[in-house]
């Protein structure tokens, strides 16, 4: 009995406390929903992205806001639980009445929330979900702040084919959509170019020891010209380190999952001769002024450098939205949509963003970074000649 009444008491207290949220502020600020997985399985990508997004909001507000109004960010944790992800989307559009939503770095979350936001007639920009299929799957109010995986994979394939040769080893993380998609797009473009994949292999998302896969590579009669490894940020360091330790010195190539300081801190000098495609060179010394400023203010706000490229993408997504609202001159969804579609050469931290020909995926140059002496250096800025179709399956 006692336990029960205690439970009831706790519940009541919690409900009373939480009802504070319902006391909403004046209609004046522009509300923007920020949906990220802050505590769940994707939080290592989403948390930096949300930090970047919040930073952008603060900067905009400090500079006077948008259309003379402040931006009120509504940050909600999706926990990478899909029912909750859908629920926070509903909260955004119903309870909070947000003008637009920015969020997420993975397709699952975007697809669980996107249709709800779309149906409510609210624009939605994803910070870092890079599957190029998403605009078609979600709807016409959905935009991406990042390029599609097909673009960066094609860039990587073309760069590697031209620079190193026509034989490759392909390894990917089999449990994640991003890594499998990236590997598939890479394979498609590389084979199209006339390349051969001599051996392909995969590993579980939670792997930390890659020696079995590495032994297989070492057993190859002849080493390929390069190794394409499609990995998540948390796996990149160990893979690279262990390959080098096993004596595999050839070039290692990957996608924007490599874009984290962790790769150098984990692999050290083993990270040399690693190349990857990403959005921009995030370096506090040789980066653009915008990048330098971003890194400095991120460091000030959170006590450390940006964890990975998603921090900048979250930042860019908010800035992109604010820019569109400013140009639209209102918070009307159709106006924002129109303004977004008309975005040209928007100077994002992660590169210049242009939406052309009604596409909801920006045209952005792909930055290829080389790690030299444990430093990220710019290898090349490219636009791939041929990009594999978003839906590879449909063509087969």
């Amino acid at each position, binding site marked *: 009995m006692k336990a029960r009444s205690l439970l009831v008491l706790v519940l009541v207290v919690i409900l009373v406390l939480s009802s504070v949220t319902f006391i909403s502020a004046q209609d004046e600020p522009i509300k923007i929903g920020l949906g990220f997985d802050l505590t769940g399985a994707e939080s*290592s990508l989403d948390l930096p992205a949300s930090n970047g997004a919040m930073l952008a909001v603060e900067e905009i507000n400090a500079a006077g806001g948008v259309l003379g109004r402040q931006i009120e960010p509504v940050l909600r944790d999706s926990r990478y639980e899909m029912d909750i992800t859908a629920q926070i989307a509903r909260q955004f559009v119903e309870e909070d009445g947000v003008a637009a939503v920015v969020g997420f770095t993975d397709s699952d979350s975007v697809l669980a929330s996107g249709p709800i936001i779309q149906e409510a007639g609210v624009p939605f920009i994803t910070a870092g979900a890079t599957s190029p299929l998403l605009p078609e799957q979600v709807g016409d109010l959905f935009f991406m702040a990042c390029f599609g995986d097909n673009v960066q994979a094609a860039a990587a394939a073309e760069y590697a084919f031209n620079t190193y040769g026509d034989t490759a080893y392909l390894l990917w993380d089999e449990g994640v959509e991003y890594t499998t998609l990236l590997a598939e797009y890479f394979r498609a473009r590389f084979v199209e170019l006339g390349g051969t994949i001599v051996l392909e292999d995969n590993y579980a998302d939670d792997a930390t020891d890659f020696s079995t896969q590495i032994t297989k590579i070492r057993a190859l009669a002849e080493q390929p010209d390069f190794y394409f490894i499609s990995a998540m940020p948390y796996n990149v360091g160990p893979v690279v380190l262990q390959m080098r*330790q096993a004596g595999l010195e050839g070039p290692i190539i990957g996608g924007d999952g490599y874009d984290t300081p962790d790769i150098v801190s984990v692999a050290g000098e083993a990270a040399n001769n690693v190349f990857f495609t990403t959005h921009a060179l995030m370096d506090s010394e040789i980066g653009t002024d915008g990048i330098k400023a971003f890194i400095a203010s991120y460091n000030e706000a959170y006590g450390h450098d940006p964890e990975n490229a998603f921090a900048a993408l979250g930042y860019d997504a908010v800035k992109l939205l604010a820019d569109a609202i400013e140009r639209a001159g209102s918070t009307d969804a159709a106006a924002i949509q129109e303004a977004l579609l008309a975005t040209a050469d928007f100077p994002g931290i992660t590169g210049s963003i242009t939406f052309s020909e009604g596409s909801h995926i920006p045209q952005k140059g792909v930055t290829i970074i080389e790690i030299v002496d444990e430093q990220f250096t710019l290898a090349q800025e490219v636009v791939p000649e041929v990009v594999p179709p978003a839906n590879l399956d449909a063509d087969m």
Partner: protein
Amino acid sequence: MSLPLYALQQLINALSVGSLYALMAAGLAMVFGILGLINFAHGDMMMIAAYIAAFSLIAGIPLPIALVLMVVGTIIVAVLMERIAYRPLRTAPAVATLLTSFAVGQILQNGALLTSRFAQQPLQIAFPPIDFLRGVVLAGALTIPKVNLVSLGLGLVLLLLLTLFVTRTTLGLSMRAAAEDIQAAQLMGIDTNRVIVTAFVIGAILASAAGLLYAVQAGTVNPDMGFSPVLKAFIAAVIGGFGSIAGAVVGGYALGLLEVLLVAIPGLGDILPAATTSPEVITFFKTYLPSTLTSYRDAFVFAALILLLLVRPGGILGTVDNDNTR
């Protein structure tokens, strides 16, 4: 690399993985043996250990002190965990305690998450390099990463110490007695609470060793890094026959071997030298055991596990009476 060399290198890989699994499984099995509790929070103890080590090293604390802090800190967490969460549940049904260990894990994970935030650290921290664990040992064409060598060595030493402890000391003997019949142990004058706390302390020591090695191998630490190793440890413990430390060790190596085999064999068709291998063999591998088959690895591991449970419910080492029910 010739085929025998390939096989040998993969065997070494299996041993390396296996010793880490054995280290993780031994701690889990010991607590289970005494309390009948599958402590899923064991993985989170590994995580806590890794965090303490990482934070200490980042703060510039010298390695030996950092390691002491790690072990002591993990022990404190383990003892608190036992005292607050598990002791009131001694008589509760197994399911309840299993779920409680998940709840404890949740608390530890989110605690680590909040701590990093307040410490203004990223969610995922690169584990600071430890010099003597970096690099590889070369033996001819064979390579063995030092981490793996250390986990093999440390694993053997710790397990040997553990064996000496449970066979040679009164406390160790008491522990085995409590594992068999906790009430009878009480009637012998054994303070079972002390025995249980000791089991958690040893579990914490094993977890911190395993956590450190795991973190070094993974290169980074993050709050949910404990789940995957504890699952492996759990499987290893079941393979060995749950509850016996020796079984857990055997199970750890068996699991390591199984996992390596499931990756090492598919794709051989692409690796075998075409000059010296008969084309039939290569075609066979390419047709029936292509490299892509490795993605079924976990399914095969668990299928093997289920088969083992059906054939030998007591695990590889276990003995089970032939009664057909219960």
